């Protein structure tokens, strides 16, 4: 398959006034490298510090200051490349990308141009409809982040904080292999998951650790690629869909009205959901790259790269395949569990020596649901894997019913404690004593003779009796036993 001309399935095409159009998207993702110190200086990378406190004289570009590379940042970028099954270039070169902006004191960004650290790789997307999309990675290069400009502090002034200046970034460039807003969202989500598994970027979009520039173009199916526009400032996965849909619609309308798309940089405005032209910068695009004379070429030993490769964690695709094979999970459930390695980890602790499918259901439906409801993260879940595991065991041992288990879950969630002790102490045990259940069934039937009569003609009414008996026994009766007894007593099958 030639990926550059991958054609979207027809349901992904969008309707214009004159026919159908295909959206073509490629992304440049800037991922901040997780490290203590900056790429070329010993200043801290910590987010949220007081302005200009995490700045060295190198970052402020004082005369005579020289960059010295942080080896760990390079190891992190190599680790990322290996995680994306990419080629690692043992020799790469740092170049200067020249432009002027107040938050770039050097007057150039140290980046990589013709010889990046990481070459071609791939990210696999499993779309909800079952389609598997392969997104080609063109390259990953390592570069310096810029500082932060605050434009809203003063009517006529811009405030500049250089704390972020010089923090290591990985620019991960994809091929134009994405064909819809959904695919673009899935790509960034997957990339974020992989980076978090690898521990090379925290993926925090709110703090700007992960930022995406999106290249959008449209074409009629089968035609060559159209002129693209680059959309900047899209800082959440949700906005990516909006930005792409808006930009594609703008281009389609423009072309259908007889206009042509100009290659330009556009800014996404989260308040309006629209994109607008940023500036005409045909000259600003002349970055006059040249090799940075302050830095020698970066040369790596294959053995050093191999050591990093040997230390890679199990990655989401492999973990997903293993969860399916080992615990008999559906692809859908496994996909949810591996989206965060912390969730997958939690699940495996719950599932260890227990029913894997039940564990998956409880983690996905109950635990993730409750965490979401209370706005908590799985890393500070009130319920430990052992506590949830004990609840699942109690159901498996038929000590409690599924319904009681949900109550027990809420009790442990809010009060903590050992689920087994709670069941003992509060008398939550399921009634399996047939005599007691029978008595409850008899009572409900004799209290509702009309309904019992009707049930003979409408066997579905048995469900109502089961419900009444469960209610009468406080949910503690074994549902299967109640069901069987109700049917027997009503004489329905």
């Amino acid at each position, binding site marked *: 398959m030639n990926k550059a001309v991958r054609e979207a399935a027809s349901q992904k095409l969008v309707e214009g006034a004159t026919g159908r159009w295909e959206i073509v998207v490629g992304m440049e993702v800037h991922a901040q490298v997780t*490290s*203590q*110190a900056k790429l070329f*200086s*010993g*200043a*801290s990378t910590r987010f949220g510090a*007081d*302005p*200009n*406190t*995490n*700045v*060295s*004289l*190198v970052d*402020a570009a004082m005369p005579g200051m020289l960059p*010295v*590379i*942080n*080896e*760990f*940042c*390079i190891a992190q970028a190599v680790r990322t490349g290996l995680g994306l099954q990419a080629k690692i270039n043992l020799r790469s*070169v740092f170049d200067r990308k*020249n432009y*002027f*902006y*107040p938050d770039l004191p050097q007057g150039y960004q140290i980046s990589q141009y013709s010889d990046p650290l990481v070459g071609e790789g791939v990210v696999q997307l499993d779309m909800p409809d079952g389609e598997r999309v392969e997104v080609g990675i063109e390259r990953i290069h390592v570069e310096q982040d810029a500082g932060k*400009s*605050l*434009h809203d*502090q*003063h*009517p*006529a*002034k*811009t*405030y*500049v*904080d*250089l704390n972020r200046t010089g923090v290591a970034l990985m620019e991960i460039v994809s091929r134009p292999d994405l064909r819809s807003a959904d695919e673009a969202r899935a790509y960034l989500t997957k990339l974020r998951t992989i980076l978090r598994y690898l521990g090379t970027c925290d993926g925090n979009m709110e703090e700007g650790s992960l930022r995406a520039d999106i290249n959008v173009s449209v074409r009629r199916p089968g035609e060559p690629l159209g002129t693209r526009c680059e959309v900047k400032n899209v800082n959440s996965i949700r906005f990516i869909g909006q930005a792409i849909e808006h930009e594609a619609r703008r281009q389609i309308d423009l072309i259908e009205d007889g206009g042509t798309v100009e290659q330009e940089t556009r*800014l996404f405005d989260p308040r309006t959901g629209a994109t607008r032209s*940023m*500036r005409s910068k045909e*000259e600003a695009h*002349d970055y*006059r790259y040249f*090799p940075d004379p302050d*830095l*020698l*070429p*970066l*040369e790596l030993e294959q053995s050093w790269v191999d050591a990093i490769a040997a230390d890679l964690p199990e990655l989401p695709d492999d973990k997903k395949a293993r969860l399916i094979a080992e615990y008999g999970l559906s692809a859908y459930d496994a996909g949810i569990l591996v989206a965060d390695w912390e969730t997958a980890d939690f699940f495996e602790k719950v599932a260890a020596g227990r029913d894997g499918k039940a564990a998956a259901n409880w983690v996905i439906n109950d635990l993730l649901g409750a965490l979401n409801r209370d706005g908590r993260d799985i890393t500070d879940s009130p319920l430990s894997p052992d506590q949830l595991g004990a609840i699942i065991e109690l159901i498996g041992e038929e000590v409690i019913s599924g319904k009681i288990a949900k109550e027990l879950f809420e009790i442990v969630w809010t009060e903590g404690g050992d689920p087994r002790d709670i069941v003992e102490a509060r008398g939550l045990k399921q009634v399996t004593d047939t005599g007691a259940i029978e008595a409850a069934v008899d009572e409900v039937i004799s209290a509702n003779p009309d309904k019992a009569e009707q049930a003979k003609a409408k066997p579905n009414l048995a469900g109502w009796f089961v419900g009444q008996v469960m209610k009468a026994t406080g949910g503690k009766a074994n549902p299967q036993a109640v069901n069987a007894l109700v049917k027997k007593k009503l004489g329905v099958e």
Partner: protein
Amino acid sequence: MSVDVATVRRIARLARIAVTEEEAQSLQHELSAILDWVEQLGEVDVDGVPPMTSTVAMAMKKRADTVTDGGRVEDILRNAPETEDGYFVVPKVVE
């Protein structure tokens, strides 16, 4: 190799250097002369010679990932014409 006045103006603009019409004329000659001089290197046959990246054969120096610098706001801001609350303050540069 010679440059024209338009190229001089473009280079000046990219470097944010204000150049008068007169200066542009004289810079055109100066730059052309420099380029002509450097162009003599073109006479050397460098087929099969790898580009030289350093005058000394050595590996790039690297640092460990430890915080060794920072916490010197006064030093960083000392030369700034205007500051406030630890920020550099510059004329508004909003897109």
